[in-house]
């Protein structure tokens, strides 16, 4: 009688990891042209993603760097103009009340002055070119992180004499570039010396169109009764929102709703966000390219499985299990996705670097775009390859060997 040995005597088949990778990549290597074409879709999709993320980061980086330098802890306080409030005014004590809040680091008030500024006394009053006159303390420049383009800002001493500092736009409209000896403007029916011209304020563009005089000068020479129009303040950067909520009650405990607090840097942040919204359109296009690329891979893998039935049959004959066949074809499509991803990352990074360099931006290729792009490419390869690989694994050896 024949001895019948149990199943355990047959040592199971093994497919070493190294062999899986080698077999998977050689399958692609022997069909190079097809491999390149089918990886192209993924490459284009990933390049679009990396390029869009890279370019939007690069273009924003300068904006954000500027924001960082200017600080996002600047708040402005104004009287509200809401329904039923009319033209409310800030209380005279607004500035000092705000200064008492512990988290406030600097306060500087700007009051509007009800006079005109003209280039000469021959120009009819009223043709102000949109330039307003305001009164400010000498610490305004520091609070706003502004700088002087020419001359100097108001000083404590100069505040006592009639002197004026022009915002960048105001100076341009009055035709004043440099301040040297004896540049005067006709301000409030008298000649006032221009002692400085300012660089543009990023966070307080209103002041670019203003002629700024000292508070004392405004009271003494222009006979103005000043009430604070806008209060600029710097607060503890970690407690911006908390401070913001405290301000209305401190300024006007009776009508806190009439006090409007805003954060100028929000506008810049919103601008950056708007650019994001634009780039998300391109991200969407990139995603479509990826999807199409994935379908391309699935297609080519289905064809490969049909063409290579004989090879599948042979592998089953020399010991490959269904799982080994599945692994082989899945590895092939994973590698296809991976190669496409690598090519896409390189292409996207090159486009980003080239365009950013031509625009003079800092070149930023976000890590998330690179790692995320590669991960997406591999994942798409896996998903696209799953169905063809399952078909390959499902072929019975006899079917696979019979095919012509």
């Amino acid at each position, binding site marked *: *009688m*024949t*001895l*019948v*040995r*149990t*199943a355990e*005597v*047959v*040592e*199971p*088949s*093994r*497919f*070493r990891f*190294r*062999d899986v990778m080698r*077999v998977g990549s*050689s399958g692609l*290597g*022997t069909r190079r042209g097809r491999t390149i074409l089918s990886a192209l879709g993924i490459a284009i999709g990933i390049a679009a993603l990396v390029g869009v993320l890279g370019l939007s980061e690069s273009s924003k980086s300068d904006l954000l760097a500027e924001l960082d330098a200017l600080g996002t802890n600047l708040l402005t306080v104004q009287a509200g103009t809401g329904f039923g409030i009319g033209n409310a005014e800030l209380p005279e004590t607004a500035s000092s009340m705000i200064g008492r809040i512990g988290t406030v680091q600097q306060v500087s008030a700007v009051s509007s002055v009800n006079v005109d500024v003209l280039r000469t006394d021959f120009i009819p009053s009223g043709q102000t070119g949109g330039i307003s006159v305001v009164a400010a303390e000498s610490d305004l420049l520091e609070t706003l992180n502004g700088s002087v383009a020419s001359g100097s800002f108001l000083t404590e001493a100069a505040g006592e004499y009639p002197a004026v500092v022009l915002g960048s736009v105001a100076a341009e409209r009055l035709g004043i570039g440099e301040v040297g000896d004896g540049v005067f403007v006709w301000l409030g029916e008298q000649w006032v010396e221009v002692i400085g011209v300012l660089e543009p304020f990023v966070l307080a563009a209103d002041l670019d169109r203003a002629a700024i005089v000292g508070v004392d000068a405004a009271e003494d020479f222009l006979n103005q009764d000043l009430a604070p129009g806008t209060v600029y303040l710097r607060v503890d950067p970690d407690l911006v929102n908390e401070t913001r909520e405290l301000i209305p009650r401190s300024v006007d405990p009776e009508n806190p709703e009439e006090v409007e607090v805003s954060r100028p840097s929000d506008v810049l942040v919103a601008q950056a966000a708007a650019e994001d919204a634009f780039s998300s359109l391109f991200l969407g296009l990139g995603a479509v390219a990826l999807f199409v690329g994935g379908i391309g891979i699935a297609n080519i893998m289905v064809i490969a499985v049909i063409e290579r039935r*004989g*090879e599948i*049959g*042979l*592998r*089953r*004959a*020399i*010991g*490959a*299990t*269904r*799982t*080994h066949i599945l692994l082989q074809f899945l590895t092939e499509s994973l590698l296809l996705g991976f190669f496409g991803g690598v090519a896409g990352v390189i292409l996207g990074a090159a486009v980003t670097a080239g365009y950013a360099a031509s625009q003079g931006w800092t070149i930023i290729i976000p890590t998330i775009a690179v790692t995320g792009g590669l991960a997406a490419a591999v994942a798409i390869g896996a998903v696209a390859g799953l169905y063809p690989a399952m078909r390959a694994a499902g072929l*019975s*050896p*006899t079917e696979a*060997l019979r095919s012509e």
Partner: protein
Amino acid sequence: MSRDRSGSPVALELRNVVKAYPGTPPVRALDGVSMVVHPGEMAAVVGPSGSGKSTMLHIMGTLDRPTDGSVLIDGVDTAELDDKQLSALRGRKIGFVFQRFFLLAGTTAIENVANGLLYSGIDPTIRREMAVEALRRVGLDHRLTHVPSMMSGGERQRVAIARALVHSPAFILADEPTGNLDSKSSAAVMDLLRGLHDEGSTLLVITHDDRIAGSLPRQVRVLDGRIEHDNGVLSLS
């Protein structure tokens, strides 16, 4: 190694194998086939097309399961094995040679032969050493790094034979090994197979060609799914 009733060891045994394909009426491609192949034997399974010899190849190669009866390979009852274990059994106990060679394009002779051990768990370096040895046995040690497209049909089939014997299987199953070759290459391939037999290998050649069958020590004639004639040692079941 298992043994038959007379005490001789057995490489392959079919016991009353039936293979039926569903249909109306069902087709019995094999209808009660029994045979024993002893180690060192060389036999031809011969028959016209449609006789059931392809089905016999599939059953003997464990590429397909019988509807009834049992198949024992080197003493292992294949009915007890699942698909995974059958794959392993094929990889370790059986060497296949096909009419269409099934060499991987763009892959060298040595790699094609080493692929015969791909799923064995043997270290790649050793696989290559064994492949070189197998290629030497088939007389192709001067073609180690040639790819199939650089070789003649006869050489390709010799590479395929080297791949079938690289793991020292219990028997080699050759399906129409000369079907794609001219007469000169055919003769050379058959000489090679006979030479392997002389060295002690067990070989089963499936063919429709009476001349080839007649040149082998044993012929198993198949017709209509039954063994019509077997001039070898008969197994009694």
